[in-house]
């Protein structure tokens, strides 16, 4: 049960990034994966409690390691969701900019694109982090 719990935690974390981030409501808040991860930790905890409930010594050290691993992985996931992926507050420029500054940049096709090329049309300008 301890190792099943660890597997559930692992599956919960991996599936968030591999599967559930494709669904915006589940990416914004891990409605599926956070409960899954917590359930995995609970399974490991229950497994350790049962191992220590037995009079013989079997499996207690290894089982405790399994629980620690589950907790560690779950903690890293929670920290990622609620802390590591946070951004600093947006600066005054970004918040207050009223007129869109013109620019001339190269597109992936090698063309020069200017914002002023789009004067007279509505524009969505999207900044993203890139593939760093």
């Amino acid at each position, binding site marked *: 049960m301890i190792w099943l719990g660890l597997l559930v935690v692992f599956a919960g974390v991996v599936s968030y990034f591999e599967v559930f*981030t494709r669904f*915006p409501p589940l*990416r*914004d808040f891990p409605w599926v994966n956070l409960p899954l991860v917590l359930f995995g930790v609970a399974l490991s905890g229950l497994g350790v409690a049962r191992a220590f409930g037995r009079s013989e010594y079997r499996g207690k050290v290894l089982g405790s390691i399994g629980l620690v691993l589950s907790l560690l992985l779950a903690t890293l996931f929670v920290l990622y*969701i609620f802390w590591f*992926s*946070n*951004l*600093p*507050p*947006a*600066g*005054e*420029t*970004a*918040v207050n*900019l*009223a*007129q*869109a*500054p*013109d*620019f001339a*940049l*190269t*597109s*992936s*096709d*090698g*063309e020069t*694109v200017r*914002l*002023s090329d*789009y*004067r*007279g*049309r*509505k*524009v*969505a*300008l*999207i*900044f*993203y*982090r*890139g*593939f*760093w």
Partner: protein
Amino acid sequence: MSIDPPATTREKLGSAGIDFPLLADPGFEVIDAYGVRHVGGGMEGDIARPATFLIDAEGRIVWRDLTENYRVRPRPGELVDRLAAIP
């Protein structure tokens, strides 16, 4: 737009059915003009923070999303609706 050079964007996205321009700002000129530099946000230095600006036909910024978490972005449908609502 991002700091990725055009070649990187071409390599990663190719012609993935994208018919809008993907721009490169490796020098942070536009990123800084719009105030969206994320200091130390990348693996090796600064990066753009995810941000969306909707601009009307006169070049005015009429809506912006400056997310506080890079996992949380505006939905494409929301952007389409907001663009349509701009007179």
